Structures are given as structure tokens and as C-alpha cells.
């Protein structure tokens, strides 16, 4: 076999210019797929971590009726005994910490004008930890970071909402909402910071207050949910299973079940990647089969000679498939090397992508070097090249010997 592979390799480089052109097509195809796959992988990873760090955590714990029934009053389907739940959760391996959130809605007023808000009561310290200790505000400070002794209830307001009410850091606004008993309640809060959610529509409505402030306003000790943060995203499924057994009367949701935007992006990018793969498959098939057809045409007399001296038609066909294999191996390997080099160049260039649709912030352009993508693309290129050689190889093996020998 080795001798025939050696012969195939010699034949591949018989017409160097044509082989180089075919090789360049393969290199281009492999590079495009690897870079696209690496970028998509980076995007998935970045988006998933961003989704986890900025809002969802890894697992969320709800009242077990939360997803089945509609609340008639705020926090009717909230969680009680929060401290006990958190203590249980803390004993589970891979759990870093958990934190409570209260979701509520109402009106925010500056005295002259009111706007609808979507509020969240949070525990500032673990929220900061979740976001990697980055202060999640653009202007001012986050909750709980003001000088000690301040008795004012604090609020951080999303940029669009603050702009709508002409609110600045230090201003006082009034929160109005319905309590858990169904009554109206209001509370003055001091704007300590203005932040951006990254989603323009959400920026028009969002605000955050301390968990206790939210509970005071809603007159309850309940919370909407507990957010569980793990050491590694990969442990999400295992920990969810453990918690489900440990926390009866609750409903658990993984981050990927809640992240509808993430799921939509994954589907879209996967479809784009598959489409790109199909295009490159077609280009490789056309290019390789054309090269092989030309090669066979030029070597017709030689094919006749090989058959005349005793080469079986199967052997001849396999020899041509070896040529396709060698072209695929060389082109694919070179494609991997070029892709790795380009990926390194891109990653060190500091280039940034524009904000995604519906987003307000750009992000660094990075390409992951994913071993699975490298292996997959290499195999795709090799298999495609071999497949595209089949037809020409069959055609060569079926030549009439005397006609082939008489070919000029």
C-alpha cells in the first residue's frame, strides 16, 4: 500500500501548478471553516458566560408552581425560608454561592413624570461577585457601596429610564408598586448609579434595588427566585440533578433553558456554519473532481499501459482514490496550519466586532482554536476530496485498454 501511496504522491505533484491551485481551494475552505467555527465557538462561549454572569447564573430555583400557574398577586408564588434553602444549596459540590432576587414592576416617578419600570431586588455583594467584581454601572456606584451610615433606600436605574425621567446620580425618585397583599405602596429612593443592560429595549424600563428594599416595598419576606452560581459552567447539569433531589417543592431551571436569546443565536450560527460547510463542500468537490478529470485525461495512455501490464481495474481506481486522499491530506493539513496562524493573528490584533443586533456594546473579535473543529474540518476536507475523486477514478478504471493506449 505504501508503494502505491508513494506513487499517488508523485502523481499529485506531477502538475504542480494545478495541484497548488486545487490545494489553495482546500486551504481556503479549511481556513474559512476553522475560522468560522472558532469564531462561532468564541461567540457561543462568550455569550453563554455573559448570559450567566450578567443575569441568569447557572441555575435558578423557583417555587414549584411558578411555571404552571399565573400569580394573582406579586410573589404569590415566591420562595419562603430563603436562608434554609441557601444553606442546603451551599452544601452541594460545585456550588460557589447562591443569591436571592425579587422581580417586581410598577411606576417610577420624579414628581413630574412617571414611567413604567421592571425592577429587580438583588443582593449587591453576590451580584458583584457573579459579574466578576465589575461594577455593573456606567455612572455613580452600585447598590450598597455608598458611605456607611446612609439610611436612604438606593436604586440604580438603566440608562434609558434615567434619561426618560431626567434622573441623575443623587436625585430622589419614587417607586410605586402593588404589595404582595394587593395594596399600593410607594417608597422614595436615591439614585446611586446609572447602568446599561446592553439591550436598548430593556434599558428603557430596568432598575435595581437592594433585596431588602424590594421586600419592604412589596411587604413580604419572600423572594422570586434563588440564583445558584457554580464553579464551572460544565457542571450545570450534574448540579441541577443533585439540587432537584435535594429541594422538593421547587422548580429548577438551567441557564440554557432560560436563555432564549442564547438559544436563538446558537441556532442561527449553527445554521450559518452548516450552510458555509455545504458551500465549501461543493467548491471542494467541483475543484477536486475537475483536477482529477484533467489529470486522467492527460494520463489516458498511461492508464492504458498500467492496465495492459496487469493492473486490475480496482487497483487502478484505488490508486486514483489515493491521489484524492493525498491532495486532501496535504490541503487539509496546510489549511489547519494557515487557520491556526490566522487565528493567532486575529486574536492578537485587538480588533472589535460591532454591537450585535439588539445590543449596545461591541465585543473583541476572537477565534477559538477548537480541537473538535480542527479534526472535523480536516476529516471533511479529506473525505470530500476522496469522494470527489470517485467518479473520475471509476471512469479511468473503465477505460478500454486499446482505446487508452491509442490515445494521443
Amino acid at each position, binding site marked *: 500500500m505504501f508503494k*502505491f501511496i508513494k*506513487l499517488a504522491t508523485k502523481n499529485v505533484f*506531477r502538475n504542480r501548478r494545478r495541484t497548488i491551485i486545487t490545494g489553495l481551494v482546500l486551504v481556503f475552505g479549511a481556513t474559512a471553516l476553522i475560522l468560522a467555527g472558532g469564531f462561532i465557538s468564541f461567540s457561543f462561549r462568550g455569550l453563554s458566560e455573559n448570559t450567566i454572569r450578567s443575569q441568569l447564573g447557572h441555575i435558578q430555583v423557583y417555587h414549584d408552581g411558578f411555571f404552571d400557574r399565573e400569580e394573582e398577586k406579586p410573589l404569590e408564588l415566591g420562595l419562603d425560608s430563603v436562608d434554609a434553602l441557601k444553606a442546603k444549596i451551599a452544601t452541594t459540590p460545585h456550588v460557589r454561592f447562591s443569591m436571592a432576587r425579587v422581580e417586581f414592576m410598577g411606576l417610577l416617578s420624579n414628581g413630574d413624570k412617571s414611567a413604567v419600570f421592571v425592577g429587580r431586588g438583588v443582593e449587591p455583594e453576590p451580584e458583584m461577585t457573579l459579574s466578576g467584581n465589575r461594577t455593573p454601572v456606567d455612572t455613580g456606584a452600585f447598590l450598597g457601596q455608598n458611605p456607611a451610615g446612609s439610611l436612604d433606600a438606593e436604586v440604580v436605574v438603566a440608562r434609558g429610564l434615567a434619561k426618560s425621567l431626567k434622573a441623575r446620580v443623587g436625585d430622589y425618585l419614587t417607586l410605586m408598586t402593588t404589595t404582595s397583599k394587593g395594596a399600593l405602596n410607594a417608597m422614595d429612593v436615591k439614585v446611586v448609579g446609572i447602568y446599561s443592560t446592553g439591550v436598548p429595549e430593556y434599558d428603557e424600563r430596568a432598575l435595581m434595588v437592594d433585596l431588602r428594599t424590594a421586600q419592604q416595598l412589596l411587604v413580604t419576606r419572600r423572594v422570586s427566585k434563588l440564583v445558584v452560581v457554580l464553579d464551572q459552567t460544565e457542571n450545570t447539569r450534574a448540579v441541577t440533578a443533585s439540587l432537584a433531589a435535594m429541594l422538593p417543592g421547587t422548580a429548577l431551571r438551567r441557564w440554557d433553558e432560560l436563555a432564549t436569546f442564547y438559544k436563538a443565536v446558537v441556532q442561527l450560527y449553527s445554521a450559518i456554519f452548516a450552510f458555509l460547510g455545504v458551500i465549501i463542500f461543493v467548491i471542494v468537490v467541483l475543484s477536486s473532481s475537475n483536477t482529477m478529470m484533467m489529470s486522467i485525461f492527460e494520463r489516458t495512455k*498511461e492508464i492504458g*499501459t498500467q492496465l*495492459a501490464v*496487469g*493492473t486490475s481495474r480496482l487497483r487502478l481506481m484505488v490508486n486514483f482514490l489515493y491521489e484524492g486522499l493525498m491532495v486532501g491530506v496535504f490541503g487539509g493539513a496546510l489549511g489547519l496550519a494557515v487557520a491556526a496562524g490566522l487565528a493567532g493573528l486575529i486574536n492578537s490584533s485587538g480588533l472589535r466586532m460591532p454591537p450585535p443586533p439588539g445590543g449596545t456594546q461591541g465585543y473583541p473579535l476572537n477565534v477559538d482554536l477548537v480541537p473538535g473543529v480542527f479534526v472535523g474540518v480536516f476529516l471533511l476536507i479529506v473525505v470530500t476530496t476522496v469522494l470527489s475523486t470517485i467518479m473520475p477514478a471509476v471512469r479511468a478504471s473503465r477505460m478500454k485498454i486499446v482505446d487508452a493506449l491509442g490515445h494521443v
Partner: protein
Amino acid sequence: MQPFIHTQDLVKQYALGSVTVPALRNVTLSMDKGEFATICGPSGSGKTTLLNLLGFIDSPSSGKVYFEGAEIRYNGLSHLHRLRLEKIGFIFQTFNLIPVLSAYENVEYPLLLTKKSARERRTLVEKILREVKLWDWRNHKPNELSGGQRQRVAIARALVNNPGLVLADEPTANIDSATAAEILDLMRTLNEEDRVTFLFSTHDPTVVAYAKRIIRLHDGAIVTEKA
């Protein structure tokens, strides 16, 4: 004793559109092992067609061919590759060497199709390349060899599998007369020393003179035979 090769009423016709062109007409011929024979005749007389049929690379329209006493079944031709590999050696007018392979590799090529080990292959290739006096040129590619050297490589390739019959289609047509004489001397030596049966076609009278048996073809039929 049965002849080494025997043809019985061999007919070959080609279809050119709606016209049928006869290439061989009822050729009956016998050859014994160790003969050194030539088929001669003008262009279009059927020399190459007869060699193709005897080399099992083409099938007759009718008639029979017996090789070593067994009738050859031509249907499909593909099963005959092993017979060609083991029993027949081909020498072509235009040498037909594989250009990307060295002289050594060209001669070794038929052996790659057998189950011979690398050591056996090397022994056989070296022996035949020394016989045709090309061992020192073994690493040269065909385009680095003269016409005579290329034909000697082709002869070595035809003989390396130790075939019973070597068919040569105008083996000296593309080389000068001095080199042609060398090639014919070499073929005759191999015939005499190794008892290899040679059947070669030509229309050159000086080449015909080398043959021990002359088969003359005209319009696809044997017109005279001279031993």
C-alpha cells in the same frame, strides 16, 4: 504436444458508424514456447490488433485463442489482468513508461501488483536491470534517458515478472537504427538465454531479418509464414 499459443479462425471487426471494418480475417496461428517471431506487414494490416488479442487487452469478434492449452474467455477482459500480469510482457512503440517514476520504479511497478516481498522485488529488479545494462541508470526518470535506454527499461519491465510471452508492438520504430540493432540483439539474447517467447510487430525489413520466424499479414489475413 499442444502449442504454447494457438488461434483458431480469429476475426476482429470494428464498427465505424454503420460500416463494419474487418481488422483480422480468420487468423489461425500457432506458436511454440521459446520462439522469436515477427508479425510484419504494411500499416493497417492488423499487426497491432493481433498483438492486442494475444495480449488479452482486446477481445475478438469471433474465433478462439488458446494459451498454454487453455481457451481464453474474453468476456469482460477484467479477469484477464492476472494473466497479463503473470504471463505476458508488453513492449510499446512509444515505451509507455510512467514519467514520475525512476527506471528502477518503472521496472518494479508490475511486481508491486504481486505479493512479492520488498527483498524479492529488489532482487528481481536488480537482476533484470543489470541484464539490460541499466543498473547505473536506475535512479533516472524516463525524461533523463535516451530513446534506446527507455526501450531497455520497457523491456526490463516486460520481463521482470518472468512472463512466458513478450509482445512488442513496433519496438524499434521510435529509435535510430544503431540503437534498434542493440535492442533487437538484447531481445534475441533474452530469447536464447531465458527461453522467453518473443512476438514483435514491424514493417521494417532490417528488423524482420532478426526474426527466426516471419508471419506476414495483409488486410488482416496471414499471407505467408516463413521459419
